[in-house]
């Protein structure tokens, strides 16, 4: 008798209208119109090839030192301006910083020969020069996320421009540590993977390959986000966030062959950056020349960039003021949830006066 009553209660709890709404929201989230990205107001101040240097003006300027942000080559930087209320850029702008974001754009076949050296010397260095000129500032703070952090560190080591602060988040520096299964790593570091052949045929690595590469390392089967969406499809705020996340997650961009070659051979295979053998247009990248104030942020649950890849940077630089933070977050959720925002506001506030 008791079981029957319980089953009846459960049947009563089944709400047909709610279920129709759930499935409608679920279908719309997957197949419906995309949400607009880049909600923080911005203006382009420089364009080079596919790249754009965006300027986000502060709501009320408090700090003279502008922030120059560099994101990874694998995806769009929209994760740094994820959603109103949980955007890294919005937070910085609200706190009185001039923010400049170097958006790499989408590489075409004609860009196949652009390598990491070109990205640093011809895009980042020139972008920083333009930032200094546009902001009329005497110094700049660099923020690099993921591979953008590696680029920021490499640039800081050869920079002629005055860099006050260097902040890197979930950054791969020491490639002797890897998140790959050991036999894959062995093949990559040995002769098991013919990178040159792939580059020769494709020129630029297609986005689907980039996505497969990351998916195979992190999560080859990827159903749980859709199940979570269905379970919470009645929660409009969650659905909106999910749509933004899904859009970003499926927005991988093509990777130029030149950059892919240097990433796999010079960094992953030969670990040249840590050994001090990496060069940018003939100039040796010595991380020991970095004297800017340094903040390294790692995520404890990062399945892509283990902490061991970021931590060695602390010993390689000559900075007197250096801080290492290990945060309870994932590779992407660090930026997405606003945790990075809080860290930046605290640390940068102390180092930007």
């Amino acid at each position, binding site marked *: 008798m008791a079981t029957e009553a319980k089953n009846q209660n459960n049947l009563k709890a089944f709400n047909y209208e709610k279920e129709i709404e759930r499935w409608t929201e679920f279908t719309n989230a997957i197949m419906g119109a995309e949400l607009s990205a880049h909600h923080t107001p911005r203006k382009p101040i420089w364009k080079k090839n596919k790249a754009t240097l965006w300027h986000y003006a502060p709501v009320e300027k408090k700090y003279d030192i502008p922030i120059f942000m560099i994101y990874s080559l694998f995806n769009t930087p929209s994760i740094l301006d994820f959603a109103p209320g949980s955007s890294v850029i919005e937070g910085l702008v609200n706190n009185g910083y001039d923010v400049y974001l170097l958006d790499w754009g989408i590489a075409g076949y004609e860009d196949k020969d652009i390598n990491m050296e070109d990205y640093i010397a011809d895009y980042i260095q020139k972008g920083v020069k333009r930032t200094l000129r546009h902001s009329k500032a005497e110094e700049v703070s660099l923020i690099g996320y993921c591979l953008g952090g590696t680029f920021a560190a490499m640039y800081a080591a050869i920079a002629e421009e005055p860099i006050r602060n260097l902040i890197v988040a979930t950054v791969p520096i020491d490639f002797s540590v890897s998140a790959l299964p*050991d036999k894959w790593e062995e093949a990559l570091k040995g002769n098991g993977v013919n990178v040159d052949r792939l580059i020769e045929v494709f020129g630029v690595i297609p986005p689907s390959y980039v996505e497969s590469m990351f998916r195979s390392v992190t999560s080859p089967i990827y159903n749980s986000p859709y199940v979570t969406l269905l379970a919470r499809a009645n929660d409009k705020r969650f659905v909106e966030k999910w749509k933004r996340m899904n859009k970003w997650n499926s927005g991988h961009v093509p990777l130029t062959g030149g950059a892919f070659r240097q990433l796999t051979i010079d960094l992953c295979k030969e670990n040249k950056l840590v050994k001090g053998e990496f060069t940018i247009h003939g100039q040796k990248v010595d991380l020991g020349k970095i004297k800017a104030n340094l903040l390294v942020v790692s995520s404890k649950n990062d399945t892509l960039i283990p902490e061991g890849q970021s931590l060695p940077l602390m010993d390689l630089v000559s900075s007197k003021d250096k801080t290492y933070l290990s945060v309870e977050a994932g590779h992407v959720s660090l930026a997405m949830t606003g945790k990075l925002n809080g860290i930046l506001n605290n640390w940068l506030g102390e180092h930007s006066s």
Partner: protein
Amino acid sequence: MTGNKTFDPYETWKSFTNNWEKQANDTIHLWTNSREYVNFSQGASDLQMLFQEIFQKNKQAMAENLQLLTKKDLVNVAKLSIQTEEKLDAIEEQIWNVQDSIESREKEFRSLIEVSHETNKQIKQLKKDQQRIKKDLEKIGQIHFELLELKSELAEMNSLKEEVVSLKTLLAENNPNKDRELALLSK
């Protein structure tokens, strides 16, 4: 009764899927983490590259025969535009240098103008001083002239004095009896 929670089949499904997905991914990583899989994967990749390359070559050859634009032609055009953009950037940077040098010259000019203003002020001051000195000199000349006059007057007075003395002595010599007469008269 308050502790009762409504059964949600979606939450149960979600929980089951999450666990299953994690286990399945771990299993895939375990299975694929072998030299055999890596070799197989490399072989498959090589084969794909071979077919891709054959397809690309055929496409290129067909497009050339039909006199159609190929990807390489488009790349060449795109590269030309990129080169132009780079040249424009370089020119812009040179204009910056020119701007900077003009600004620095402007600053120099401004400082020069300030210096010349200062010099002008000093010259005006010097002129005023000169005029003042001139007036003073004129006054000194006047005083000098007056002194000379005074000197000549003094000289005249001296000569007059000498004349008076000589007259006195002359009078004294020529009229010695007059004193006696005067003395007698006074008695």
